[in-house]
């Protein structure tokens, strides 16, 4: 293969990788923003909005970078609003409904620990733009993780009810965590090029961290065997379609308009 073609391929792959990371951030940010004016108390309302803002901000950075690589003059909004369920390649865990506060805290703990290690690695990506986004995002995630850890311990070791809710939330979400550590050929190729993060290598550390927090919180790891995959291939839960139809309705109702 001629070097020039390879370069173009790489750019296409990187674009798709950046869009995926943007999808993860946007879909979770969209879910988190559903907490606005629904949190257990005012401070938490504001804090959750902050985390949502961080995620949506992060999505924009990834999409803007992807747009800059795009030969078709795409914009961040094209990625967010003009793609359908099959085109989104976010991990399924991000699209699950927000549930109650326990569901949200458990998902955040899982994702925060994951992102903590993921972004740490992505900071060293050979792709400068991705490394810069990771650097900025990592700072936010450090703070997110403080929150989700504190809450997990409080709710796990709080009342009988809070403990039960947390344990149920863990049991119901656990099967969605496996997907975080499997990669398709696109990402494997980018891992080889030192652009993408090798997620399999994060698993042990992730598991150690989450086990420690669960232990402190008197929560137990589920022994369920089920695992669900599909996000990176564009196969989603039915929740995503609903999320997208709400998120995209206005933008799609008035094609080509400025806002």
């Amino acid at each position, binding site marked *: 293969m001629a070097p020039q073609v390879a370069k173009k391929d790489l750019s296409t792959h990187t674009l798709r990788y950046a869009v995926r990371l943007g999808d993860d951030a946007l879909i979770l940010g969209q879910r988190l923003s559903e907490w606005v004016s629904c949190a257990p108390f005012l401070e938490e309302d504001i804090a959750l909005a902050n985390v949502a*803002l961080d995620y949506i*901000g992060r999505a924009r950075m990834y999409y803007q970078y992807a747009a800059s690589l795009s030969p078709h003059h795409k914009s961040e909004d094209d990625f967010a609003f003009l793609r359908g369920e099959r085109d989104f390649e976010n991990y399924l865990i991000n699209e699950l409904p927000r549930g109650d506060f326990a569901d949200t805290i458990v998902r955040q703990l899982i994702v925060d620990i994951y992102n903590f290690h993921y972004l740490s690695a992505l900071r060293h990506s050979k792709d400068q733009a991705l490394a810069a986004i990771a650097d*900025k995002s990592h*700072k*936010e*995630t*450090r*703070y997110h993780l403080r929150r989700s850890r504190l809450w997990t311990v409080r709710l796990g070791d709080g009342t009988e009810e809070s403990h039960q809710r947390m344990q149920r939330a863990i049991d119901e979400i656990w099967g969605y965590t496996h997907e975080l550590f499997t990669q398709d050929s696109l990402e494997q190729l980018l891992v080889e090029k030192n652009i993408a993060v090798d997620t399999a290598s994060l698993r042990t550390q992730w598991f150690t961290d989450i086990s420690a927090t669960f232990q402190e919180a008197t929560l137990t790891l589920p022994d369920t065997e089920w695992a669900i995959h599909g996000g990176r291939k564009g196969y989603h839960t039915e929740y995503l379609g609903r999320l997208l139809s709400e998120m995209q309705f206005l933008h799609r109702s008035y094609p080509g308009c400025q806002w």
Partner: protein
Amino acid sequence: MAQSNVQLFEVFIRLKNGLNHQHVGSLHAENQQQAMDYARDCYSQSDELGNIWVVQSENIVSSQKEDRDSFFSVSDKPYRHASHYTLPDEIKNM
């Protein structure tokens, strides 16, 4: 602390009504009441109608240097500032 018979207190003074309290320094005292008395002696030299707060230093929780980046990231949200929204020249008073 070197002297265990006393505790460290932080002193905040509002010089006059309408202003915020400002941190002015710290002192050693046995208890809150003595801290208040010393604060008056050591820090309040103004004749203005002021107000003093004393807070035991150990009751103050400070953010850590390593938290700085994850705590203060407003600068990356330009849309939080009015200057981000350019208004037409015709529109004054907004």
